[in-house]
């Protein structure tokens, strides 16, 4: 009895303390988690710093002048040729071909899936596109070199070289197709139902509604998909490394071989590359350009998507 009483008394009279307590475990864990989060920023900084440092070494080389870099059309840093154009043009040509293939196909696929396909058909067809998206790019390279190039040679004849930009570009387009299709589909299905109903109520057919109301309403989302697609094409390496050509070549003929920026980095760094040479630093200069271009494209695309979302929420 007595014992119980003291407990009761203790409980009644223990001062209630609601002040903040220091919990060292919690704080340590929280700082660890914060560090993990911040590490991603560190990665970006490291990319900019490392690429920038070596690229600066390259551009500070007295032989590398602005006039040579942008004014000449041969690239072979080892022997003092610093014209960046052959790498840039082939990158642009392969990317343009890829977009030319993937944008219409991807958009049409998205329209079909979001506007016409029954839920059952969608559940069969979408995984097929996902498989296409999951195939490693080196396999696409094999496909470009050993399927697409012979096919192009059959169609266009002798003019098609064994390595050529067209084949790499087309296959790159197939690779990007699922990305453009799924992003466009997201944009199409984000268009509110009220808008479709408004169109139907005015005597529009399903097709007129899809193409003239839903598609324009989703246009900014589709634009974002296009930009991401371009960024993907510019940064893609293996398809062009295998199929586009193994040497810089200033040409606008898509059936000729020409090495892209990424393909050049892959080929040179895959060989015997010693540090502190002009070859080494020049690769970093190219990589920095790649990084900046894709970064800007990705940022623009994200901004568009965020604006698009706000508009329909």
């Amino acid at each position: 009895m007595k014992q119980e009483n003291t407990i009761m008394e203790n409980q009644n009279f223990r001062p209630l303390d609601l002040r903040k307590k220091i919990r060292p475990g919690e704080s340590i864990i929280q700082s660890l988690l914060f560090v993990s989060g911040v590490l991603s920023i560190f990665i970006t900084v490291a990319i900019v710093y490392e690429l920038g440092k070596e690229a600066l070494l390259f551009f500070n080389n007295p032989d590398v002048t602005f006039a040579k870099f942008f004014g000449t059309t041969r690239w072979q840093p080892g022997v003092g040729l610093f014209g960046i154009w052959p790498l840039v043009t082939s990158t642009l040509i392969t990317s343009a071909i890829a977009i030319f293939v993937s944008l219409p196909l991807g958009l049409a696929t998205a329209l079909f899936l979001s506007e016409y396909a029954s839920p059952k058909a969608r559940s069969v067809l979408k995984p097929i596109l996902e498989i296409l998206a999951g195939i490693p790019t080196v396999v696409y390279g094999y496909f470009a070199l050993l399927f697409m190039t012979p096919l192009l040679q059959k169609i266009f004849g002798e003019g098609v070289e064994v390595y050529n930009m067209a084949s790499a570009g087309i296959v790159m387009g197939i690779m990007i197709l699922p990305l453009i299709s799924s992003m466009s589909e997201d944009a199409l299905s984000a268009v509110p139902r009220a808008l479709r109903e408004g169109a139907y109520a005015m005597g529009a057919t399903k097709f007129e509604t899809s193409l003239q109301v839903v598609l324009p309403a989703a246009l900014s989302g589709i634009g974002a998909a296009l930009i991401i697609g371009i960024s993907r094409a510019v940064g893609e390496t293996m398809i062009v490394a295998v199929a586009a050509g193994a040497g810089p070549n200033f040409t606008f003929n898509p059936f000729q071989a020409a090495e892209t920026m990424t393909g050049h980095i892959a080929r040179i760094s895959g060989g015997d590359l010693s540090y502190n040479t002009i070859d080494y630093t020049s690769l970093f200069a190219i990589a920095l350009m790649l990084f900046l271009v894709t970064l800007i494209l990705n940022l623009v695309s994200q901004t568009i998507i965020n604006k698009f979302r706000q508009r329909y929420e």
Partner: protein
Amino acid sequence: MNPNRGHYPEGEALHRSLNGRYRSASIWQALFFSALVVAILSLAALLYNVMDGAFGYVAFEYKNDPSEFTAKPLDDLNKQELLDILTANLSSGAFKKLENDKAMEKRSRPDLYTLVLERLIQIDTKQTWSMTDSILHSKDIKAEAAAKYPKAKLEFRSWLTPVFLTTPMSSKAEFAGVRTAILGSLWMVGIAILFALPIGTGAAVYLQEYANKNFINRVIQTNINNLAGVPSIVYGMLGLAIFVRALEPLTSGSLFGVTDANGRTILSAGLTMGTLVLPLIIINAQEAIKAVPDSLRQAAFGVGATRWQTVWHHVLPNALPGILTGSILAVSRAIGETAPLIVVGASTFISIDPDGPFSKFTALPIQIYQWTTRAQSEFHAIAAGAIIVLLVLLLTLNATAILLRNRFQKKY
């Protein structure tokens, strides 16, 4: 109602114009559908192209006739007899080198058999044919081979065999396998996940459970989304500059007493790949954590749990399947990536199994790249074989991820 208002087609005219509208609609719909068909056909063509290359007739000659080494047919020899032939005919240096790789006594019969073929008899592949040609034009091929290569043997060969999976690299396509490449890929992916999974999950927990909407956290989030879009070859350059070069003492293992190595090791490759998949893991883990209902957190807070206790005991266990699914997808991305490995210096020719993080390495996609870019068609054939291995591996991983997702999805 208003006569000067213009008019719409009525009655018959309306029917006619509507029919026209429907017609153009169905043409367009057919066009949309054909785009999808093109996509599916591309996938089919790709898979077919790979299968087509991995099987088919091959015409080859023996450089040295088997009768020079043994009276019996080669296939009937047992292990000891094969070993005797090797001992008798190989130079002592070559024999010692093989012995150093793996004791001859301990080698299996197929292994020794391959050695006899590779080192002594020596196969010389004259020509290969695709699977389709081999099946459809079998007669023509036989005639052609007999005319062109009178001494050659013609055989229908599957380039993808169990032996292909278990043999190391070789400079001859006929004897090459993907064993070292598979092991290299596994080591590399293991290191990548060990590095990226804890950090990625931690970052996701921080962003979803701790971070408030201030400037720094918005920057972190935007930054992660952007990192996911950085070309993989740029990660390769980062890995080259940091892991291979700046951290060479660590990644080459010279800090730990490994000699005669440089920074182009499995460890460097794994860390590079870990950096590459980190944003993917973070984004997927964030999605998984987002899907945990708030009521669960409130219940935990309601009984006086701290934030970390809530996260550790309630949020993470419930988000785990999603996080795992995301990691599997990250693994399959890492297994297929090629460009960063080329940049950080995957070796092109390695016949010894990697034995630790400081080994030189090759990987499955690197082998595919190497073999695809060779001129001889027999290398294209083994590239096709390696692609099938890679695709089956990826398919298994993705199927696991999908099963995992479906199994745990219905919970809420």
